[in-house]
């Protein structure tokens, strides 16, 4: 009697589990590919913002390697580098480097460097800076981040790769120097890394892409 009741309870829950998981599983099967695709598209959109479609014809999404350099790329974890090519020729590399000493901690950047060492553009992917003070680094909020475009190690000397307050060429924000300082430094370092490892970057074979699905 008691055992029967327990069994019934289990059966009810199990029964609904069958229905529920079927619903979910069916939906999953139906959307799996679409999700993967949407995810890829989103990533590509942000990459192509810096290196437009006209400039490359390879599959940026799959043409990627991981490198590690704590000193220059800001993290002891692997930094992902996407490579843009046109007809097999290298066009640009896109680094997901880190500016470790922002006001509110690390700032995640996307730094696009043309094969010739000039900057194709910089974007902030993620940050914890103070709203209203340090967040002018976002492209939506101000044009500051665009001031990097086309600069390279050759257009500016090492002393010039600083904010104005420290004697460089880049603006700081009123009352907030730390954030821009951190970013300028990180971009500068990434350029240096690129200069030192350019050939390696473009010659290493892509890493396999299937293992990690969605982030």
């Amino acid at each position: 009697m008691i055992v029967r009741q327990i069994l019934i309870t289990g059966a009810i829950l199990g029964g609904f589990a069958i229905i529920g998981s079927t619903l979910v599983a069916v939906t999953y099967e139906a959307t799996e590919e679409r999700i993967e695709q949407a995810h890829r598209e989103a990533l590509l959109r942000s990459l192509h913002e810096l290196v437009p479609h006209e400039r490359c014809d390879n599959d940026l999404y799959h043409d990627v390697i991981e490198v590690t350099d704590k000193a220059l790329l800001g993290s002891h974890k692997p930094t992902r580098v996407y490579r843009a090519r046109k007809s097999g020729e290298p066009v640009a590399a896109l680094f997901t480097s880190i500016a470790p000493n922002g006001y509110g901690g690390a700032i995640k950047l996307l730094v696009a460097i043309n094969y010739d060492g000039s900057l194709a553009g910089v974007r902030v992917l993620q940050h914890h800076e103070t709203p209203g003070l340090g967040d002018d680094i976002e492209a939506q909020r101000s044009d500051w981040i665009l001031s990097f475009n086309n600069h390279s190690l050759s257009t500016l000397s090492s002393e010039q790769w600083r904010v104005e307050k420290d004697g460089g060429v880049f603006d700081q924000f009123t009352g907030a120097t730390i954030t821009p300082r951190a970013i300028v430094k990180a971009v500068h370092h990434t350029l240096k890394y690129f200069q030192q490892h350019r050939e390696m970057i473009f010659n290493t074979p892509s890493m396999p892409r299937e293992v990690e699905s969605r982030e």
Partner: protein
Amino acid sequence: MTEYLLILVSTVLVNNFVLVKFLGLCPFMGVSRKLETATGMALATTFVLTLSSVCSYLINTYLLIPFGLEFLRTIAFILVIAALVQFTEMVVHKTSPLLYQVLGIFLPLITTNCAVLGVALLIIQEEMTFLQSAIYGFGAAVGFSLVLILFSAIRERIAVADVPEIFRGAPIALITAGFMSLAFMGFSGLVKG
């Protein structure tokens, strides 16, 4: 060691679940009228939260990932939580009528406490280890309990204040929670992340 301490500080103060992450607000608003009930709720939630974060970690690592069933996460976690809470409720009801009566109708509400599922999901999202998950869950629960208890003490005070009529009850409670959240912003930056 410091790593675990930082997780604790971060979950209790800097990224307080209730005031900064917005999780577990329903019981926060609902069970904070009296200090006693708030304390009971805090205890129960701490228990469930810590346990469920551990269970979720185990289920995820040993059941879902091996079979490639990550998409079943939500449903599997909530199932664990619901069963856990229901079980706790029955046990408490039987063994400690006092506690049961203090928690009253709110024990079942722990199931639908976002904090519980939220912890489980965040643990997976942040790719934590077993120990980290346990500490994270515990820290979240302590943070929840802390603000719940403080909030209830303040609410007991403002319950008898001369609050303008239209602000009595929920509005002034929410505004108070807002001010608490404001005060907690003082902790921002303590743990750089």
